């Protein structure tokens, strides 16, 4: 049931333009900004002694889901989905950009961070493939 609510809530949020499906993904800071704007009052009302981290706030919101404002539920689910999209994008960049990295970053020493830094360099933006550039944008590394 909860999954279903999540799905429709996310679809609605995206359809309403909260976060456009084609726009850039959003990161943790912006997500938290949206989340607290929508759920701040609910967090203080129902989770007043709950500390951020280790899934405690999420568990508390879930326990009180029937008491949360609709806007909070909608935003929360959309935010969770957006964060998953960005985390997934960060995860796949090395693979999507592998050929570009071999071509452009051969003088770079091994290491994920070094290669990523090479790929996001401004002078390489025009040289890397569209797929790689898109993955870097989705990863929030512009």
């Amino acid at each position: 049931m909860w999954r279903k609510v999540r799905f429709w809530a996310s679809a609605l949020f995206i359809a309403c333009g909260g976060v456009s499906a084609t726009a850039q993904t959003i990161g943790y800071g912006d997500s938290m900004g949206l989340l607290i704007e929508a759920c701040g009052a609910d967090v203080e009302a129902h989770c007043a002694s709950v500390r951020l981290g280790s899934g405690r706030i999420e568990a508390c919101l879930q326990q009180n889901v029937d008491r949360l404002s609709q806007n909070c539920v909608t935003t929360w689910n959309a935010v969770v989905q957006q964060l998953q999209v960005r985390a997934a994008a960060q995860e796949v960049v090395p693979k999507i950009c592998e050929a570009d990295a071999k071509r452009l970053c051969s003088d770079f020493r091994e290491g994920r961070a070094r290669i990523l830094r090479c790929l996001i360099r401004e002078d390489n933006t025009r040289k890397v493939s569209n797929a790689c550039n898109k993955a870097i944008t989705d990863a929030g590394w512009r």
Partner: protein
Amino acid sequence: MRLRLECLAVCLLPLIGGHAFAQSNVSPGEILQSLTGASGAAQAVAIDVNAIRSDIEQRIKVEGTENAASPPPVLQALATLPNLTLVIEFDLDSDRIKPRSYKTVGYIADALHHPLLLSYKFVVVGHGDASGSREHNLDLSQRRAAAVVEALTTTFRVEPGQLVALGLGEEQLSDPSDPTGAVNRRVQLLNLGPR
């Protein structure tokens, strides 16, 4: 060069007794810029948080070391590192981060996930004001720094090896002329160099 000068100003002002530019509204770009440093080739700095803590615990027992003009020697080495001072609000006398500060913690996470900072290690330093005993403030700031690290490494998926927590209590006031002022309650991030 301009970037470098701005960074140094941010790094050094708190040490010469000026007000730290503690920010509650920061952009991810500002965090990245402050923590990257100008050289981009910082040497790894070894930091033993337990040693620093016991050094401060010893110091607290010595009369006349309150609000000392100069920081403990062990901290002076950290003072030149690329750093950023932020305001993260907590409940009174608690390590619970107020929801209105989640956004700031999230922006820190975004910066730490960026390739420019991915291979660096950071220390999250908690500072308090001088209300209450020094021992209590040391303990509270340690728990608050740990709370920020926990949120970053769980909710925001920062690699645990990228962060250490250090509480300094009231030992490094931002404004010694106003020891109980809000300006002293802040969280600092220091770049310890490649990990």
